[in-house]
């Protein structure tokens, strides 16, 4: 009973201080929104409408069909037809176009010949995104400049799903949710506790009847609520700006997020028991954030990572959370179908909490 009222006292105090801390308050709203805008718009390799000119020297039925199908992909925006490859070169140099397509006189014959490329693509190599698109175009079932893979069929077929690993906002935002929550939850808790130590508040608090558990739980609960608010914010912005679908159940998503937030708060507590200053706490948060971004499957496909990186990734809570959110939001999976990820998050929380409790003694030495 007394314990509960002490816990409530800590929570009340924490909320009161948070309300007055404009910067933190701003970050609660600002970090998710700004990160969403940055990542949502910037991490977008779904390139469309590249300015393209074509030198169709064949001008046959087949070549015109090829051009039509190329146009249908929407990857290229054909703005001009020119006569010679030299004209394409010039426009590329001037930056008027990003891609030039040369269709040689003997296009119809080349298509049948596995030894020779049927079409030549001239690409503005200074932009890596455009180069990567060109490589994807090359992988279409027609042999372009390298000619390494010969066409097996005569029909020129251009597949519209040219980018099987599409990273549209739809795919980015469920992962981004995990990154944003990792950053804010870990940082807020770690800093909140370290700040109290720096200011000397902790020396006063640990000389009162407050127990370590009351202190830790009381500090963490307000941040769970904040995490849930951030989650709502991300979902609303994701829906309004990027039309990110929510195919599964919102309740499932919130339950999954609860488990994930708990894991991050526990990690924040561990950091707070190690860091001596707020600056150190921030550094350690960033240190944990980097692998969360790189090894979680957020940026690079998990399956393509080396074994060791995968193992590290499996330890990170955000890896499991991204699987959960992609599953629930995009594939309409139920929470129970994804239970191994929940178990992983639970285990992580348990271990981190234990470590924090062991390290967080009511002493100064």
């Amino acid at each position, binding site marked *: 009973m*007394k314990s509960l*009222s*002490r816990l*409530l*006292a*800590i929570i*009340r*105090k924490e909320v*009161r*201080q948070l309300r*007055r*801390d404009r910067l933190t308050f701003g970050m609660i709203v600002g970090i998710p929104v700004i990160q969403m805008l940055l990542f949502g718009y910037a991490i977008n390799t779904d390139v469309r409408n590249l300015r393209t000119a074509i030198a169709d020297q064949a001008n046959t039925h087949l070549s015109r069909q090829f051009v039509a199908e190329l146009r249908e992909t929407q990857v290229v925006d054909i703005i001009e037809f020119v006569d010679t490859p030299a004209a394409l070169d010039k426009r590329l140099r001037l930056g008027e176009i990003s891609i030039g397509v040369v269709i040689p006189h003997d296009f119809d014959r080349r298509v049948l010949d596995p030894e020779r490329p049927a079409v030549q693509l001239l690409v503005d190599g200074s932009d890596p995104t455009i180069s990567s698109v060109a490589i994807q175009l090359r992988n279409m079932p027609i042999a372009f400049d390298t000619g390494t893979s010969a066409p097996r069929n005569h029909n020129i077929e251009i597949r519209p799903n040219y980018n099987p690993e599409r990273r549209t906002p739809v795919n980015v935002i469920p992962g981004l949710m995990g990154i944003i929550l990792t950053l804010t939850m870990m940082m807020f808790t770690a800093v909140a506790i370290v700040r109290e130590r720096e*200011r*000397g*508040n902790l*020396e*006063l*608090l*640990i*000389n*009162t*009847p*407050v127990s370590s558990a009351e202190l830790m739980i009381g500090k963490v609960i307000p941040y769970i609520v904040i995490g849930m608010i951030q989650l709502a914010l991300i979902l609303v912005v994701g829906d309004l700006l990027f039309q990110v679908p929510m195919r599964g159940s919102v309740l499932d998503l919130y339950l999954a997020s609860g488990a994930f937030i708990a894991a991050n708060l526990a990690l924040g507590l561990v950091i707070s028991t190690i860091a001596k200053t707020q600056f150190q706490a921030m550094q350690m948060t960033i240190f944990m954030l980097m692998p969360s971004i790189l090894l979680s499957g957020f940026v690079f496909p998990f399956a393509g990572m080396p074994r060791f990186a995968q193992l590290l990734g499996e330890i990170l809570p955000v890896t499991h959370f991204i699987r959960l959110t992609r599953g629930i939001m995009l594939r309409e999976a139920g929470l129970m179908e994804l239970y191994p990820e929940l178990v992983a998050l639970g285990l992580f929380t348990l271990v981190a909490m234990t470590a924090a409790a062991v390290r967080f003694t*009511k*002493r*100064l*030495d």
Partner: protein
Amino acid sequence: MINDYAIEASGLSKHFGDLKAVSKLDLKVPRGKIYGFLGPNGSGKSTTIRMLCGLLTPTEGTANVLGTAIPGSARELKPRIGYMTQKFSLFGDMTVVENLQFIAEIYSVPKKDRRTRIDELLGKYDLVGQRRQLAGTMSGGQKQRLALACAVLHHPELLLLDEPTSAVDPQSRRDFWANLFRLAEGGTTIMVSTHYMDEAERCHRLAILDRGIKVADGTPQELQASTGMHIVEVTADDPYQAQEALDCDEHIRSVTQLGMRLRVLIPEQFSQPVGLVQQHLDEHGVTADVRLTTASLEDVFVSVTMSPEERAA
């Protein structure tokens, strides 16, 4: 268990690596008294207080605080002691009343009593006008009164105050001590650390700490009576010249200047202290009034913090 002492420590030591912050400290703090802890910065006052309230684990030695053994679980001790940290440790971004309310909740003061208790403290510690002010924006004296109000809110039996007056003006210090006497009269045991002589003089008993070692303890009167030194006061027109004249004699342990006066410490074994001083002054042609006087606490402090070589020479 009825015990005459609120705190009994024996052989209490705390080492930080090679540094012996506190060495083999024996203490007996009687109940209901103000016990002073006098020492310069870094002499181990804060470290000792932290050990006594269970914040630091002693490297060696034991203590008994209000019947609770240290080292050990200090949990049942917490509601019975009030601790005022050296650095202001309340919440600067909360108002005076919010801070008091928080402390009241933490100490489980019954809800119905909270308001009256807080109002009583605001009145007693002259904080009525600041009740809605953020604690961080208050003056040193106001912060100190708030810290004391928070430390005594739950009626602790033992108050541990770590240099409570180091950041306040002289008037606030006098008022603060008036409050301490009132608390002691009410039966609270108070242990207060300080580096001010005038404050030490007000304590019922005190211990003098030097580089982690207790070099003297007793009532201020006892300490003043047992310095083992003659105190010779020299009033000269030119105290600098007088000081120079006295610096050369190895019988003279210490010469301290206080304005126009010098306080000269000479071991008790020496039978003619005034004559000795007068002789040196005459030799240097310094005219001065020389007379024997009684030891102040400052003299006690100077004499007990001398190194053994200085003392014996």
